[in-house]
């Protein structure tokens, strides 16, 4: 125990941005009260839940994954299965029909789903870490009562922020909301809206007073039948089963009370939940990396022989495989450490940017290598490897591009020097 403590203390990070997991779990002087646990140690219910999601992914999602990708469409059975298994209301309190589980549970779900199908994972991620979180955190009691139970049991949610001229510069958005006394009137359009094809609940960011700039941005909650129109569905390189749509709002009437948080605080709300959402996307990326790695290493060590031995027995292969394993482990540690920081109520913005940046790099590198390890077979659509590789690319683009993540990290470093 003494030796372990010494090593751990010596390895304690010096940089300001890498804080220990939780102050309350500080090192103690006696072995008997040594309570700090490894970052990847989950609670009993988290472990059980991880098993449930893994089983659901293998038995329900995997058999549909290729067909959903080819059809560029989610299978309704998969979406229904997500609801039935409780994956669409992970953090939603029990009184609203959810499980009342931890944020880490939501992250676990995304990783386990992404090991099998990244489109299913992002549907779940956007629904859990953006839509549910916003409604839970900022909704009035009436909104929570109306929307949380149906988001947990039957309605997919969608988060509508980006527009054709406002992507990274999100708060330059042009969609307008006019106060009409007893209702809001929304006009404008949105682009790159994940889940829009399946969604029945939409969180729409619109400006109530463009003269106030970003301080006019407000978050509204709308039902599809209020008149949300899908103008176009994008055809994409990866996560093809996940719907990404252009939406148009043409005199969309929203009840006066359907505002999340205060009027004019939409930008704050969006920033907060996007920071959290990055941890979810990072988790999706480690899932992709692990899924590709697992299949390709099975192939290398159990299936494919050349020159009289398994290709995994060649040192050139072994070293590449070992490198990939290190990258995945490092990314996973970052992801779950950031999730625990968020749960502990600590600042995690920089860490979220770091883990999202790094995990998406790792997913792209590992999935790319995994295709190579499997050679011609990896390049065909018989195997899921080419899909993992295509699905990984979006990780460097959505919920803040890699450049935006780097900028966030650099800003934090600059602040510490000023």
């Amino acid at each position, binding site marked *: 125990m003494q030796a372990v403590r010494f090593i751990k203390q010596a390895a304690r990070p010096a940089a300001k941005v890498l804080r220990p997991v939780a102050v309350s779990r500080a090192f103690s002087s006696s072995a008997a009260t040594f309570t700090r646990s490894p970052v990847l140690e989950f609670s*009993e*219910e988290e*472990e*059980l*839940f991880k*098993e*449930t999601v893994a*089983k*659901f992914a293998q038995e329900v999602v995997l058999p549909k994954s290729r067909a959903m990708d080819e059809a560029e469409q989610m299978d309704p059975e998969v979406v229904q299965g997500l609801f*039935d*298994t*409780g*994956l669409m*209301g*992970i953090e939603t309190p*029990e009184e609203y*029909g*959810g*499980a*009342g*589980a931890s944020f880490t*549970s939501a992250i676990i779900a995304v990783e386990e789903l992404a090991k099998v199908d990244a489109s299913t994972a992002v549907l779940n991620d956007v629904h859990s870490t953006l839509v549910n979180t916003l409604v839970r955190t900022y909704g009035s009691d009436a909104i929570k009562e109306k929307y949380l139970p149906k988001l947990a049991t039957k309605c997919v949610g969608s988060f509508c922020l980006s527009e054709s001229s406002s992507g990274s510069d999100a708060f330059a958005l042009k969609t307008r909301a006019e106060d009409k006394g007893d209702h809001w009137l929304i006009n404008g359009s949105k682009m790159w809206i994940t889940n829009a094809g399946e969604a029945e609940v939409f969180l729409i960011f619109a400006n109530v007073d463009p003269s106030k700039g970003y301080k006019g941005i407000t978050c509204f909650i709308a039902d599809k039948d209020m008149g949300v129109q899908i103008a176009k569905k994008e055809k994409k390189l990866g996560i093809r089963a996940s719907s990404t749509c252009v939406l148009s709002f043409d005199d969309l009437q929203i009840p006066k009370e359907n505002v999340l948080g205060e009027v004019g605080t939409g930008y704050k709300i969006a920033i907060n939940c996007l920071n959290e959402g990055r941890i979810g996307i990072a988790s999706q990326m480690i899932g992709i990396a692990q899924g590709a790695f697992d299949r390709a290493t099975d192939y290398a060590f159990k299936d494919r022989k050349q020159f009289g031995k398994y290709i995994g027995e060649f040192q050139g292969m072994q070293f590449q495989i070992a490198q990939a394993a290190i990258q995945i482990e490092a990314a996973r540690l970052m992801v779950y450490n950031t999730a625990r920081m968020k749960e502990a109520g600590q600042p995690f913005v920089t860490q979220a940017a770091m883990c999202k940046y790094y995990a998406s790099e790792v997913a792209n590198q590992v999935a790319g290598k995994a295709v190579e390890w499997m050679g011609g077979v990896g390049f065909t659509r018989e195997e899921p490897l080419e899909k993992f590789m295509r699905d990984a690319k979006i990780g460097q683009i959505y919920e803040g591009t890699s450049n935006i993540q780097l900028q966030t990290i650099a800003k934090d470093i600059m602040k510490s020097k000023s």
Partner: protein
Amino acid sequence: MSSKLRIMVPVKRAIDFAVKPRVNSAKTGVETAGVKFSINPFDDIAVEEAVKIKEAKKGAVESIHVVSAGSSKAQEVLRQSLAKGCDTSTLIDVGDASVEPLTVAKMLAKLAEEDKSNLIILGKQAIDDDSNHTGQMLAGLLNWPQVTAASKVDINESTGEVTVEHEVDGGFETVSASLPMIITTDLRLNTPRYATLPNIMKAKKKPLKTVKPADLGVDIAGRLETVSVSEPPPRPAGIKVNSVDELIAKLKERGAL
């Protein structure tokens, strides 16, 4: 039937079915360090059957009591079973000791008496030691009727008569008996459900009692001694023949024809 069903489901935490077991270096058993453990698959089927009976026979089942003898780690399989629909649970904490089927059966018999169980459903065997003893020994100790390797269970809750189909060489046999009774499960009985997330969280609030073997008046000291555990001998490589004639000649040479 005068009283309601009180079902007991004994479960075991065993090495996961997907793990390839390896003999430990001391040759005393299989390697358990760093190996994934899960609920014994036959026991999972027993849990599912009990929950299905409870769901199908509304009001006829008073409680499902899931029990495991093992270390504190066996709590995982108890929680999982509670999440799938069992009502109460008991851990018989035997520490890291390996307990023999007869010992387990004695402890279960005592618990069944205390709990006034009238139906015990358990796996026909655990996939770690494949003993296939506990259910039968338990039936002997309690002097209850038993049906092993059930593939279909039908309970008439008003008469207390239970009809069970079980697999025998060459087909199925249907037998019936009256409660109280013991049923051991086979693979084809049902397909276990997932523990959904809301139910996993709710299971945290369900009772999990811990008892010691001494509380049940059972001495867990073993009666059997494991002399040695070894891997099956590796299969020798086969040979290739070029023609049917050569095949016949080789078979004759080995006395197979």
